[in-house]
């Protein structure tokens, strides 16, 4: 099976250039994300979300008779490569880009999109600096670190009643960004964290950091990081006898958390981008998605694909339908967009900076799955 | 006038005594032969004089200056050049470049000046080129300047080593077994070359296994055996010295015969 994939990949490589010229009538949707490198699993989720949306639209006759063709470019989850990847999309004259995973990569490649005047909807990067008024071509549908970290800080104190909160965070932009907002939000509420320690993404052994945290004797431990470090931290914290409840933000919103830390992750409360129990629409989509993509190289994870799917299907496509492919008109249309999305409670809209304003979802890990948070 | 004077020079490696209390004078303008059986310390002595090894004890005075603690490059700059027994040429460089590297020693100007083409540097390089050219002519290599050193025939590699040493414009030239591996005709050529160089007024010390060559070229010779100097004097006389004969031919033969019987 792997072999067939390889041959497929070679054929794709050879035919990309031709496909571009042969189907000039199509609307071209660019996707940039890491199909290799550390962010691969997220990149594949994003690609699947896009594929699913495009397939559905094309099956329903396309947009005013024009089909959508998908141009997926791999940025190897690497900021240097991601500049080239975006340049490639510009060169292929895509009409807009929906994608991007990893703040470092998006911060690097959005400069290319801005210079080229290409509408870019970011789905997988949370650094606040991505959406500013200066960056008029860049939009973002995912919450920023600030929204999530603020929300979880609030929930930790007001809803979970934590008094001694420790923080452990990845030393990358995601972790540092979350930490800054989280600590600031706690201060606003009148609480100081009892310990703040960083780690490196590639770390495997966290006993040094966790020993310091154990000395601080916290009742809540905020983990700002991603898989696999976060579940490793949870396991090791429990081994060390740390009893604190874990809290976190979107970095933990990955089903692999429960696979890797089946016991330790129980009771963790976090903010997330998507949860199937929020509304029936979300549940239906998730079931469809899982059905369609099971059997691939990784188990389907709705949470990774949801934003890409929603951004393409509910934001990008309606705008192209109403404004066509003129880039300036398209940009304005996206900026004006307002509507509802599954799994997002209430209305959502873009603010002046291009950031989608929305309510997030709080979930709790229970019985090996994400459950809608039912606390106070 | 004494150009170089070594006194009481000793050196040992891991307990093995390579040089034992060597006293040595090299007079200005002379061609000194240094002979001795294999492993007697001839090359070690050269390695000490050229700064590759540091002495354990003793002093070396060259033109009134103590040099026994100097590094290799420092000693070359003072005017002692050498060749190596097992040719150490710059194999991937051309014959001309091999000699030019050495000729650079005598010229002024900085490397950066070269890069930016400063006038003083260009002059300096021209001068170095001229020195190199002259040394190549002297050693009969003028026709092969463009060849890579490693592509030269063995005998010519030998002469190239000498040309390179000459381009340093030394006061004292140390030749370490230059005739090793040469056939008789090449050997004769080499002898002629050494004579010519010496005739230009250069002081030379020659380490050689071939005693005939030393007696033919050098007025004076010293003999080393097991790190000690066992004879010093007119070369024709030195080789008749019983200790030298013993060093080369073994001691009292009859005793050995008795053993064998």
């Amino acid at each position: 099976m792997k072999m067939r994939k390889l041959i497929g990949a070679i054929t794709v490589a050879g035919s990309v250039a031709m496909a571009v010229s042969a189907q000039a009538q199509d609307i071209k949707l660019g996707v940039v994300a890491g199909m290799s490198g550390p962010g691969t699993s997220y990149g594949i989720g994003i690609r699947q979300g896009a594929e699913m949306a495009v397939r559905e639209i094309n099956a329903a006759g396309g947009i005013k008779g024009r089909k959508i063709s998908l141009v997926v470019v791999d940025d190897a989850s690497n900021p240097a490569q991601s500049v080239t990847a975006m340049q490639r999309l510009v060169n292929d004259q895509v009409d807009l880009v929906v994608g991007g995973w990893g703040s470092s990569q998006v911060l690097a490649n959005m400069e290319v999109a801005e210079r080229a005047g290409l509408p870019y909807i970011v789905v997988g990067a949370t650094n606040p600096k991505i959406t500013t008024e200066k960056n008029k071509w860049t939009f973002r549908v995912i919450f920023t670190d600030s929204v999530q970290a603020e929300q979880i800080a609030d929930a930790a104190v007001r809803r979970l009643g934590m008094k001694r909160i420790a923080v452990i965070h990845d030393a990358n932009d995601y972790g540092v960004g979350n930490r800054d907002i989280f600590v600031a939000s706690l201060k606003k509420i009148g609480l100081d964290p009892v310990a703040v320690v960083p780690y490196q993404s590639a770390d495997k052994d966290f006993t040094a950091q966790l020993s310091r945290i154990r000395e601080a004797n916290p009742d809540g431990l905020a983990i700002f990081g991603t898989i696999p470090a976060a579940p490793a931290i949870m396991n090791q914290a429990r081994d060390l006898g740390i009893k604190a409840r874990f809290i976190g933000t979107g970095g933990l919103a990955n089903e692999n958390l429960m696979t890797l830390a089946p016991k330790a992750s129980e009771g963790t409360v976090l903010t997330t981008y998507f949860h199937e129990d929020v509304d029936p629409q979300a549940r239906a989509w998730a079931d469809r998605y899982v059905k369609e993509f099971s059997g691939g190289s990784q188990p389907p994870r709705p949470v990774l694909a949801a934003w890409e799917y929603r951004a393409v299907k509910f934001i990008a496509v309606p705008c192209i339908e109403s404004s066509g492919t003129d880039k300036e008109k398209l940009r304005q249309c996206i900026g004006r967009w307002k509507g509802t999305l599954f799994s997002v409670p209430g209305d959502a809209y873009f603010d002046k900076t291009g950031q989608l304003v929305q309510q997030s979802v709080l979930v709790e890990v229970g019985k090996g799955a994400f459950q809608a948070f039912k606390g106070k | 006038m004494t150009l170089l004077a070594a006194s009481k020079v000793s050196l040992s490696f891991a307990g093995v005594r390579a040089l034992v209390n060597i006293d040595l004078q090299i007079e200005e303008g002379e061609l000194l032969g240094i002979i001795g059986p294999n492993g007697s310390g001839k090359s070690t002595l050269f390695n000490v004089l050229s700064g590759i090894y540091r002495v354990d004890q003793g002093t070396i005075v060259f033109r009134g200056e103590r040099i026994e603690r100097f590094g290799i490059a420092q000693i070359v700059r003072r005017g002692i050049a050498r060749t190596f027994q097992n040719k150490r040429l710059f194999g991937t460089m051309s014959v001309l470049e091999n000699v030019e590297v050495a000729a650079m020693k005598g010229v002024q100007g900085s490397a950066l000046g070269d890069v930016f083409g400063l006038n003083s540097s260009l002059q300096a390089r021209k001068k170095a080129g001229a020195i190199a050219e002259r040394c190549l002519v002297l050693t009969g290599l003028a026709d092969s300047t463009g060849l890579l050193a490693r592509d030269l025939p063995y005998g010519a590699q030998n002469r190239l080593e000498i040309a390179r040493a000459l381009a340093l414009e030394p006061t004292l030239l140390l030749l370490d077994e230059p005739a090793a591996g040469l056939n008789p005709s090449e050997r004769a050529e080499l002898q002629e070359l050494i004579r010519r160089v010496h005739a230009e007024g250069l002081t030379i010390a020659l380490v050689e296994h071939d005693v005939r060559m030393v007696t033919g070229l050098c007025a004076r010779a010293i003999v080393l055996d097991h790190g000690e100097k066992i004879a010093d004097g007119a070369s024709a006389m030195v080789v008749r010295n019983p200790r030298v004969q013993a060093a080369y031919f073994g001691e009292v033969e009859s005793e050995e015969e008795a053993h064998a019987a």
Partner: protein
Amino acid sequence: MAALHQRWWFWAATLAALLALPALAPQYVVHIANFILIYTLPVVGLGFLTGFTGRVSLAQGALFGVGAYTTALLTTKLGWAPVATLVPSVLMTIVLAVSLGGAAVRLAGLYFVMATIGIQQIVWLVLMNWIELTNGPQGVRSIPAVGLGEYSLETPQQFYFLALVAAGISYFLAKRVIGSRLGLFLRALSDDQLAASSVAVEVGRAKVTALALSAAWAGAGGFLYAHYVRFIHPDMFGLEPSVLFLVMSMFGGYRSIEGMIVATALLESATEYLRPFGEFRMIAYGMILLLGMMFFPMGILTLVRRRAGAPAAGKD
């Protein structure tokens, strides 16, 4: 190849093709060309070490990063004009390289490689963790474009000419260095260190100079890179680019600057071609390195040379 070098029309045609490129090629190709041109700097710089002192460095990516960060921080935090930061960037890179590696470069070859791995990791970790200075993992963004008077080089096409001029200057300067007495000294000591010192070459100093030169070229490359990409991040300067630069400088056949440049172009284009392969892309890249070294240890260009009948230049 050797014959081609000596024909004026070869050079004229090459120059014409290079000048016409941005007008004829799509922007994406120009963009790749820009990266190639920028990368030739650290690669040629590394060539001073690998080809001419026999010392292999795996820290060139870090030095490239030092150049990039110096200009990025000076322009974004202190508001300097980009042009004014070229010299400080190069100097900073040299100072750092010599202070960290100056003692190590005197070591025998393999031990120097080991030291450069340490240097590479240390620089990367500092870029990542000294957040007050470098912004750490957030990277430095909004680096201004290089301006020439009123005109600022924003698009790939505009930047192309700057990169071309820079690569050209780097090429000719490198040729001059190699032809200079320093080049002569370096080649001599890479052939035989003892013989070099016995013809009055100050071996230690020559090696440190080679290190400083390779750092200078890396720093200048980093300067260009920062103002082209305009967002830099520590991960751009990890072990990965160091390996890439090393391979580019080795695939060219050790001592040929033209070879290094061609290898840079080939390898960078190959990485681009491999992009659609997704998860198989890195496997293919690894195979290129492995097979390249297994079958063309003296550089891929030796194959071309062998075909052309000219003797393969190498150091064996």
